[in-house]
């Protein structure tokens, strides 16, 4: 069945059309009346016919208009019904008297209700029965517009079948055009599966750290012990110890990525000088790498964010650049303010990243030259996390590289001159 066209008539247009039709009717009908009824007695009779006709025509128009509105409303409500029932989360529509007037199919499943009707009625009664705790929607609506106008909270919900599950409840007010509320919509998201997965993942991370590090500790310590005792090939033992350190770092990075992705609320937001931080990281690296050359031109660049996380990003970019910089060469780090953003670039004069490898730079296990330089390190670890850290600050991380001409990795952060560190 063809969908009826949406009514685009605004109230002003409808009234205007009505006024024009009315005025036209008066002008035309008076002239016709004059032509048809020369005598006053006829005129009075025709006047009544004219009035009756006007009422008939406008009534017909009004009827058609209302019919269109009603069909449109029916279509809309069936669309809303389909959307609501298609949503995976439970949705409750609550009216101004705090009575649940609608619930979707997911709500029936989530509450393990026998039918939709079982959920309708007093909201307070439903909350009491299921321990559902609605967040304060009024405060959220007053505080902000858009997504901020939705209040959220987590609670435990006791389903009708007695089972308890972890849920996240969000509530948004349904406003009249003047902003005053005439009800609210509550969305209940079943977190039991994700909560279970999260805790399983955290447990895995902790276990992995332990399970990997103990054997690594044994291997490394034995290699060192043999080296100290002058047993075995000294250089081979050094390689073993070095590779164990590398495995430990890889493990550390992987754990950091998992942990970072687990929690989005981990980022601090404090004002700091990006130039000062860049200087600090460069100085620390120079010390650690025994005077490897890093040319740095820091400027004062106040930004807002997680200083230690951004410090990690700087460290990763500089470490990578040093790894690829030929011995005796100089890594260049710079910081400039471009409009509303501060941009840090780190440039090396190493072999560069071949074009066919470039799309994979931010893959977790990317290596620049898998065939030629098997020991060149796991480049991608750190870069994918770095990019995530930067984007969570509202910035971007990118690179330019050409085979044989080195690489430049850069990232931007929103410049915040008004922020005082």
């Amino acid at each position, binding site marked *: 069945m063809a969908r009826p066209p949406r009514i685009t008539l605004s109230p002003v247009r409808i009234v205007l059309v009505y006024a024009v039709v009315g005025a036209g009717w008066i002008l035309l009908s008076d002239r016709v009346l004059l032509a048809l009824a020369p005598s006053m007695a006829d005129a009075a009779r025709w006047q009544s016919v004219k009035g009756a006709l006007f009422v008939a025509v406008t009534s017909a128009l009004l009827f058609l208009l209302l019919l269109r509105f009603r069909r449109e409303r029916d279509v809309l409500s069936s669309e809303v019904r389909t959307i609501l029932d298609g949503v995976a989360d439970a949705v409750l529509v609550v009216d101004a008297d705090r009575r649940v007037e609608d619930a979707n199919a997911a709500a029936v499943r989530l509450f393990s209700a026998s039918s939709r009707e079982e959920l309708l009625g007093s909201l307070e009664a439903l909350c009491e029965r299921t321990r559902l705790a609605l967040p304060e929607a009024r405060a959220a609506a007053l505080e902000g517009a858009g997504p901020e106008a939705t209040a959220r909270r987590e609670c435990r919900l006791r389903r009708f079948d007695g089972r308890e599950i972890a849920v996240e409840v969000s509530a948004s007010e349904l406003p009249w055009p003047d902003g005053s509320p005439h009800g609210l919509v509550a969305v209940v998201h079943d977190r039991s599966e994700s909560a279970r997965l999260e805790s399983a993942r955290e447990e895995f991370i*902790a276990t992995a*750290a*332990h*399970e*990997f*590090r*103990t*054997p*690594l*500790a*044994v*291997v*490394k*310590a*034995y290699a*060192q*012990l043999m080296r*100290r*005792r002058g047993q075995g090939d000294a250089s081979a033992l050094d390689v073993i110890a070095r590779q*164990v*350190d590398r495995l*430990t770092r890889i493990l*550390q990075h992987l*754990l950091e990525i998992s*942990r970072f992705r687990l929690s989005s609320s981990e980022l601090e937001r404090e004002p700091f000088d990006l130039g000062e931080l860049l200087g600090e990281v460069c100085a620390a690296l120079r010390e650690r790498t025994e005077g490897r050359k890093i040319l740095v031109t820091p400027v004062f660049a106040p930004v807002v964010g997680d200083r230690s996380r951004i410090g990690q990003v700087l460290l990763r970019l500089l470490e990578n650049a040093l790894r690829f910089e030929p011995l005796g060469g100089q890594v260049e780090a710079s910081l400039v303010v471009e409009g509303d953003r501060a941009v840090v670039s780190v440039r090396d004069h190493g072999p560069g990243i071949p074009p066919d490898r470039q799309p994979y730079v931010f893959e977790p296990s990317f290596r620049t030259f898998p065939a030629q330089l098997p020991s060149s390190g796991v480049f991608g670890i750190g870069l994918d996390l770095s990019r995530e850290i930067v984007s969570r600050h509202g910035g971007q991380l990118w690179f330019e590289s050409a085979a044989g001409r080195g690489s430049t990795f850069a990232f931007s952060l929103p410049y915040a001159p008004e922020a005082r560190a």
Partner: protein
Amino acid sequence: MSPGRGGLEAGARTGVLVVEDDPDLAALVEMVVAEAGYPVRTAADGAMALARVEEEMPGLILLDMRMPVMNGWEFARAFRARHGRAAPIVVVTAAENAYRRAEEIEADGFLEKPFEIEEVLVTLARFLGPRTEAAARL
């Protein structure tokens, strides 16, 4: 190695108790400590470690945190309840935040796995005094 609080307060006791459930790592640390010239005993879990402590109070406890039967946290709680700060505890942990594990049980120091042999020797010297002649071999 972290800055610790213990120092040499354990007095003349020079024995080391290695509490570690991994037999290879326990054997290795035992060998390192013994070759450094300190008397050493091992325990595979917290409960066994408490029994060893009852036999003789060591001068230093190297404590793994995750162990079967009785883990490092439980051991530290039981040890403190019975013996207070009779011996310094150095946490040897594979956890990500070793210092936090150390803080949790108010340990006197921590070693992060995988550690350097040198770190173990420095720890022993700090809590038990200078190495003996035998240590020259290491």
